[in-house]
């Protein structure tokens, strides 16, 4: 087998998480990642409103804080103080759990995303990732597929037909586009691995891009496009936000939600955007890699922080793209969505996989 | 020669298949012409085979041609290897000659006779198949092939008797012939099995030296074959089928039931004559059976009203003569009589056929009479045949019959008084023969006409007439041409005797005695003929009155000794009773078992079907129960 096969022989005593990192370190990293994400989300909300205003040639929120910078805080406060409405006859537990699932899965995805390379400090090499698990990408997929439960259940538990329809749409959409997502991901794995099997680890995938200096988006442009579109669908972003399509379904799955329960859905959606962007950046845009930012250059705290900065910059850029698309494209009709997913995305992703396979076999990558 | 022999077999078979498969599309005389052409060709081939054999030195006069290996069973001593092939020797060629010769004439005759019949193609197809079977019987390389032909001719006989299967009489007669023949076949089969057991072979070629050397044979072995011969050649007690077989078309009676098939029994005895000679008292059985049959059938023939039945009983009677000859060891004489009989009996049948044809199917002698004015040619031809049958010099029958009687007397003269009895029976039969022949001829052609006045009898058309003329000539000169013992002119004997067993008893009389006996027989025959002609000639009424108010014995004759009734009482009824018992057993027990099995499974399936109730949970439940059982088994 390949020498790159870095998956360690399973130690049955400690099978789950990386033994090299002690608990406190993992906790610390978790807090850091959580903090970063939770910072990004309000920023994103603000950016969305400001960018949309900018694109539509209007002002947008500019009263709270400097240039409206504290607007998200105000929104938060508003949500916290609103009454928690619960429709009659809903299963209380599921009604409450649904937004939590949406938020938690989205946030959890960040755990496997490497923000940078390895920090060598005090005789200890610390990977800049909460859990560099062997099955990294698969974990992302698994979590994203769990995430759909939040929306679906929210829709069902609301005991309302708009919500139910939203939930239904959500589940159908997820399943349809998850296929494309998975196959596009496969093409990356194939291309990255060459003739031998490579790795599921995101850090490893980034390292390969860094080694070759060519990001996967250049190797697999079609795969990149497909993955991005599928990621849009997975995060229910326009033009695929049918589960919450206001004109038809009022608010879709979150019609009946208010106050912080709604806030959690909100948080989940934006966190999913962040996570999706991060994953795309890792898979296709080289992660923390940047030309001339080699391992030799990036040493110590400075190097690590630079890598993190590069990574965050890429993520932010991609998030901008997310927002930009939202305010550019009209929403698809439901049948268009399905046709597009099954008749275009899926065949194209298979084509892409074929291309990747041939390329890997012939050593193009 | 292989080619000739092969063609001799293939041609009839191919023609039978051709006519059987495509005959329906042929119209008018076409099937008959085709069949006749084939038969004539076969005759030519037989002549060729005869000439070939004649050209060979006497001890090498045989041809064995194997076409392919048919059976190869067992191994070592138990091996039975049979070829499909042909065995040509003087005996088989003689038979082939007259079978094809007389056969072609009858084919020719049939063309006209069957012209207006529905399904003539079927008739000719059967006829061709018969010819094939007969040739296989005669020419077959081994006894099994002979048996094959034996069964084949039986089948064709059945088919042809029942040709008019719409008539119940015909269908019944066919069935009767078939069943009675089966009894004989059992004897044949037993003989064959026994022969193979004793000698390990059934091929004629291989049996030739064995039979030449054999000195003692179990008499029952020979009698097994004789039983077979009795069945086929209509001897006591298996003769009952032959008169009934007259239900078939008349040419069929001529061909099968007079000239050829019925002589198959004689052929078998001649073919195996060394076995018969070596099985001492078997020959006596043959002789006595033959003599008894001859007398018996001759008696019955006295009082038959159906012209064909008269001829049929006469055939049985003449066959009895032949077996008498065999039994006396005069195998050559038997063959001689077979040939002359083939000529004149075929002639008589065909003539009778012409009469029947002219009278539109009338067969009752009492409704004929005076026909010699309407059918002079037929009358002339039939008279020749009748004289031959009656044994009047110089017609063919005289020579062969007289030879047989001479042998019988010679053996008595040589010191076996019982042979005088046989001779006496023969002479008596000869007298009867002359008498009933005269009766038949007179009733038919002589006297005043009793024919239905609406009918206008006319001469037979040309093909029929030709066949009659040819056979008439043969009946007149056939005997003298083939042999006259008293003058030591015996070409047939010279030809055929080498392949037959030597007679175990003396056969020659002093010339003076011989001539004397001949004159006596001649006188008896002429006298009997005169009486018969006188009795039935002229006014018909007294004769009819005499026959109608017959005393007891004559009633017996009219009733044909009530043999059929006897059989019905002794055999048919008990058998029927047993069969009915079996039928009941079959219905109640066997069918009950099968029906029971059927209804049981139906019941079972009805019950089991309940399990398929469409409820998924029931299925699941039983699945789980099954799993429990399997697991228990696995753990136990």
């Amino acid at each position, binding site marked *: 087998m390949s020498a790159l096969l870095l998956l360690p022989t399973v130690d049955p005593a400690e099978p789950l998480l990386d033994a090299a990192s002690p608990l406190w370190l993992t906790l610390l990293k978790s807090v850091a990642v959580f903090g970063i994400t939770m910072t990004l989300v309000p920023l994103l909300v603000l950016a969305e409103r400001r960018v949309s205003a900018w694109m539509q040639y209007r002002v947008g929120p500019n009263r709270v804080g400097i240039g409206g910078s504290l607007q998200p805080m105000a929104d938060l406060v508003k949500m916290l103080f609103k009454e928690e409405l619960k429709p009659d006859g809903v299963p209380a537990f599921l009604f409450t759990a649904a937004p939590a699932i949406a938020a938690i899965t989205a946030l959890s995805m960040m755990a496997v995303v490497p923000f940078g390379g390895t920090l060598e400090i005090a005789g200890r090499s610390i990977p800049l990732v909460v859990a560099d698990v062997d099955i990294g990408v698969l974990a992302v997929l698994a979590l994203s597929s769990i995430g759909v439960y939040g929306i679906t259940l929210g829709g069902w538990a609301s005991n309302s037909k708009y919500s139910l329809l939203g939930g239904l749409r959500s589940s159908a959409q997820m399943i349809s586009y998850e296929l494309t997502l998975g196959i596009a991901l496969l093409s990356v794995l194939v291309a990255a691995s060459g003739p031998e099997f490579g790795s599921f680890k995101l850090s490893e995938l980034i390292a390969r891009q860094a080694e070759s200096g060519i990001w996967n988006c250049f190797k697999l442009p079609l795969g990149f496009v497909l993955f991005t579109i599928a990621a849009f669908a997975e995060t229910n972003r326009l033009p695929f936000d049918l589960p919450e399509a206001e004109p038809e379904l009022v608010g879709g799955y979150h019609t009946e939600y208010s106050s912080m329960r709604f806030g959690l859905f909100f948080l989940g959606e934006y966190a999913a955007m962040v996570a999706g962007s991060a994953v795309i950046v890792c898979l296709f845009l080289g992660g923390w890699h940047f030309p001339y930012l080699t391992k030799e250059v990036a040493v110590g705290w400075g190097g690590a922080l630079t890598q993190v900065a590069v990574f965050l910059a890429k993520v932010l850029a991609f998030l901008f793209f997310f927002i930009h698309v939202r305010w550019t494209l009209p929403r698809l009709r439901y049948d268009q969505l399905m046709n597009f997913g099954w008749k275009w995305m899926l065949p194209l992703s298979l084509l892409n996989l074929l291309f990747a396979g041939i390329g890997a076999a012939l050593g193009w990558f | 020669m292989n080619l000739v022999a092969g063609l001799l077999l293939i041609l009839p078979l191919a023609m039978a298949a051709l006519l059987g498969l495509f005959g329906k599309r042929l119209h008018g005389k076409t099937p008959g012409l085709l069949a006749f052409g084939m038969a004539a060709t076969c005759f030519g081939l037989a002549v060729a085979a005869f000439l070939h054999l004649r050209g060979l030195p006497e001890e090498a006069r045989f041809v064995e041609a194997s076409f392919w290996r048919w059976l190869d069973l067992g191994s070592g001593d138990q091996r039975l290897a049979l070829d499909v092939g042909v065995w040509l020797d003087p005996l088989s060629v003689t038979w082939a000659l007259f079978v094809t010769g007389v056969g072609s004439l009858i084919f020719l005759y049939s063309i006209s006779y069957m012209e207006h019949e529905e399904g003539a193609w079927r008739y000719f197809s059967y006829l061709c198949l018969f010819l094939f079977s007969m040739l296989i019987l005669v020419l077959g390389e081994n006894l099994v092939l002979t048996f094959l032909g034996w069964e084949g001719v039986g089948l064709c006989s059945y088919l042809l008797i029942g040709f008019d299967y719409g008539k119940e009489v015909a269908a019944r007669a066919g069935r009767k012939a078939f069943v009675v023949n089966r009894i004989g076949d059992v004897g044949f089969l037993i003989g064959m099995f026994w022969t193979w057991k004793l000698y390990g072979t059934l091929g004629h070629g291989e049996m030739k030296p064995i039979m030449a050397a054999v000195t003692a044979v179990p008499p029952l072995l020979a009698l097994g074959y004789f039983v077979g011969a009795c069945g086929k050649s209509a001897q006591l007690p298996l003769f009952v089928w032959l008169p009934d077989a007259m239900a078939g078309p008349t040419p069929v009676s001529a061909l099968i039931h007079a000239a050829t098939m019925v002589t198959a029994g004689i052929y078998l005895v001649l073919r195996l004559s060394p076995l018969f000679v070596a099985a001492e008292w078997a020959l006596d059985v043959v002789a006595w059976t033959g003599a008894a049959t001859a007398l018996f059938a001759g008696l019955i023939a006295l009082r038959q009203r159906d012209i064909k039945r008269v001829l049929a009983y006469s055939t049985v009677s003449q066959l009895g003569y032949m077996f008498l000859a065999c039994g006396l060891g005069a195998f050559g004489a038997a063959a001689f009589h077979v040939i002359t009989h083939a000529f004149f009996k075929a002639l008589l049948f065909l003539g009778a056929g012409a009469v029947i044809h002219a009278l539109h199917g009338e067969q009752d002698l009492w409704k004929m009479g005076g026909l010699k004015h309407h059918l002079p040619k037929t009358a002339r031809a039939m008279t020749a045949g009748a004289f031959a049958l009656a044994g009047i010099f110089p017609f063919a029958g005289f020579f062969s019959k007289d030879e047989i009687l001479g042998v019988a007397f010679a053996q008595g003269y040589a010191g076996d008084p019982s042979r005088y009895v046989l001779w006496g029976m023969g002479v008596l039969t000869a007298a009867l023969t002359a008498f009933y022949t005269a009766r038949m001829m007179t009733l038919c052609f002589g006297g005043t006409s009793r024919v239905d006045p609406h009918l206008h009898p006319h001469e037979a058309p040309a093909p029929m007439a030709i066949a009659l003329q040819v056979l008439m000539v043969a009946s007149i000169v056939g005997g003298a041409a083939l042999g006259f013992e008293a003058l030591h002119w015996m070409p047939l004997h010279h030809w055929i005797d080498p392949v037959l067993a030597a007679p175990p008893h003396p056969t020659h009389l002093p010339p003076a005695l011989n001539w004397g006996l001949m004159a006596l027989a001649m006188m008896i025959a002429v006298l009997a003929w005169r009486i018969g002609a006188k009795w039935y000639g002229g006014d018909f009424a007294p004769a009819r009155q005499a026959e109608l108010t017959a005393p007891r014995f004559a009633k017996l004759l009219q009733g044909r000794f009530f043999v059929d009734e006897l059989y019905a009482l002794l055999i048919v009824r008990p058998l029927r009773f047993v069969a009915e018992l079996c039928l009941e057993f079959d219905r109640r027990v066997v069918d009950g078992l099968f029906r029971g099995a059927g209804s049981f499974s139906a019941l079972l399936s009805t019950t089991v*079907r309940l399990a*398929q*109730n*469409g*409820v*998924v*949970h029931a299925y*699941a*439940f039983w699945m*789980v129960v099954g799993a429990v059982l399997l697991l228990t088994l696995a753990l136990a």
Partner: protein
Amino acid sequence: MVPQAWYLLLSALLFGLGIAGFVARRNTLVMFMSVELMLNAANVVFLAAARDHVPARGSACALFVIAVAAAEVAVGLALVLALFRLRKSVQADEVRELRA
């Protein structure tokens, strides 16, 4: 090191619960879920049995099982949909068209 028998017992229990669900429930959907449960129990056995020998092979077999489960679910759910379209119900005991 957890003894293999524990895994096997656990899988037996899961399997049994699956059977129980299958035989006792009438909702076809829940019956399908029970089947899934049984398949999962089988997978546990595959992996547990392969752990001490060739773990990769156990995983490969389990993968086949998962593929089969996916196929089964696709067809099964389509059946349920068709059934519902006909009957407006998914209760298994209301469908008896297959009886003899």
